[in-house]
């Protein structure tokens, strides 16, 4: 292999390793934002969706996504992928699949049956995610052909996870005590420092997520990679600051957990357009994401009364869709603000909507079936005492 090819492979492997580490970040954010009595259950869910994703994507998911296209809609599956030349891609895509699955975990934390979660996580990784992913990233997918741009997956990964999270949160219902007398109650997370540290890890991993999606670093890709690093970082920073000021103004104090969600929202929003917008565009996208995420979380909680302990639906679903649309506005090549007219924006909307429909439809079918069969939710006593003691027979925190 020549040096340039090695460079590309190495870059993909390194970025894959960074994305891998995001699993730890998600675990910390989710545990930090929820109560201590469910910590062990969250650990298990997060480790297991990584494991299931690793095995499932290798066993079949990867080829469903990247196999030869059957009618622009699905890849031709082969079992137990074993192509020596393509292992770096398998790895990179595996950790992406695990990310999509893990997003759901946060929204349904604190009340979901562990065994049910495992089954859903498996279906998510080998069916739901790779099929819509095929439409955009395989090269011959119908959305690609339409000109849809989702560079690193605001929609393909985050919105898919976010919409599945939405369906999960609705079908499973809110945690006991979350809504009483038609009022939303606060259930503070047990350790915001874990949450904050998790955000640092996610931010770190996101450099791999976005810049790795260039899938190359040699030649002309080099400057693209560093451009992506900058847009990613600017959007995250702008969104975190914005979310902080929004809460400062609305609630009177700079809110920590919303600021953390803000940083994440900035990262999710720029994911689609990180290679297509300018630094200034990224900065503005971040600001928009920072405003939207706060109001979206508010709205989903207080108006829709859907209980999402970590804000996953807003951060990944809503902001993921938003970020994808904004590519149509800010793309320096073809964006509305750069004289490209409404075409790209229209294409983006088609992509966002069709993938949302897919994710919502399939996860509804799967989760509804699970609800009617083995059940989605633990019993009242189990929930009150905490999932750790009932599902795993352990207290995570001891002397």
């Amino acid at each position: 292999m020549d040096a340039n090819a090695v460079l590309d492979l190495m870059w993909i492997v390194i970025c894959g390793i960074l994305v891998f580490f995001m699993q730890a970040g998600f675990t910390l954010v989710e545990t930090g934002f929820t109560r201590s009595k469910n910590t062990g259950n969250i650990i298990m869910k997060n480790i297991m969706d990584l494991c299931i994703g690793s095995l499932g994507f290798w066993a079949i998911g990867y080829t469903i996504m990247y196999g030869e296209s059957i009618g622009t809609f699905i890849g031709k599956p082969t079992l137990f992928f074993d192509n020596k030349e393509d292992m770096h891609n398998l790895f990179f895509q595996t950790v992406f699949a695990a990310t999509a699955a893990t997003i759901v975990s946060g929204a349904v934390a604190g009340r979901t049956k562990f065994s049910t979660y495992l089954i859903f996580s498996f279906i998510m990784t080998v069916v739901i995610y790779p099929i819509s992913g095929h439409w955009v990233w395989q090269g011959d997918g119908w959305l690609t052909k339409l000109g849809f741009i989702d560079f690193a997956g605001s929609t393909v990964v985050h919105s898919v996870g976010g919409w599945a999270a939405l369906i999960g949160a609705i079908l499973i219902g809110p945690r006991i005590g979350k809504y009483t007398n038609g009022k939303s109650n606060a259930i503070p997370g047990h350790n915001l420092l874990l949450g904050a540290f998790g955000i640092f890890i996610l931010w770190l991993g996101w450099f791999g997520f976005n810049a790795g999606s260039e899938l190359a670093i040699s030649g002309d890709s080099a400057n693209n990679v560093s451009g992506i690093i900058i847009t990613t970082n600017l959007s995250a920073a702008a969104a975190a600051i914005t979310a902080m000021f929004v809460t400062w103004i609305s609630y009177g104090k700079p809110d920590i957990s919303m600021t953390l969600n803000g940083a994440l929202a900035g990262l999710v929003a720029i994911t689609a357009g990180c290679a297509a917008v300018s630094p200034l565009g990224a900065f503005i996208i971040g600001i928009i994401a920072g405003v939207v995420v706060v109001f979206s979380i508010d709205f989903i909680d207080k108006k829709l009364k859907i209980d999402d302990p970590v804000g996953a639906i807003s951060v990944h679903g809503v902001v993921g869709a938003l970020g994808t649309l904004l590519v149509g506005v800010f793309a320096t090549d073809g964006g509305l603000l750069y004289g490209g007219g409404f075409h790209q924006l229209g294409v983006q909307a088609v992509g966002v909507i069709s993938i949302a429909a897919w994710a919502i439809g399939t996860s509804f079918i799967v989760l509804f079936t699970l609800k009617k069969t083995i059940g989605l939710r633990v019993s009242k006593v189990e929930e009150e005492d905490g999932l750790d003691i009932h599902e795993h027979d352990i207290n995570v925190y001891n002397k």
Partner: protein
Amino acid sequence: MKKIEAIIRKSKFDEVKEALHQIEVNFFSYWDVTGVGHEKQGHVYRGVSYSTSDIQRRFLSIVVSDPFLDITIDALIKSAYTGTIGDGKIFVSDVIESYRIRTGEKGSDALK
């Protein structure tokens, strides 16, 4: 012998301890509790405003011999005072017997 249970603001603890020290009450036990009472604190968490009367406090348990009772109460009331709602309470009850484990001493000897 009397047992004095004082429920005070955590932020006042150092002053209270110093005041007890002044009157040579150097023996007691304390732990943190949540108090429910008049005081209410309004908060906003992720946009949800809520108000709670559950407030972190420190609980002191002090067993004193009868002659010490009044000055201890006095010292407590003075040092734990801020004047705003939520300063806390003091409860006094009877103790029948005290033992010092190390020596087996009984009664007020055990308290010194």
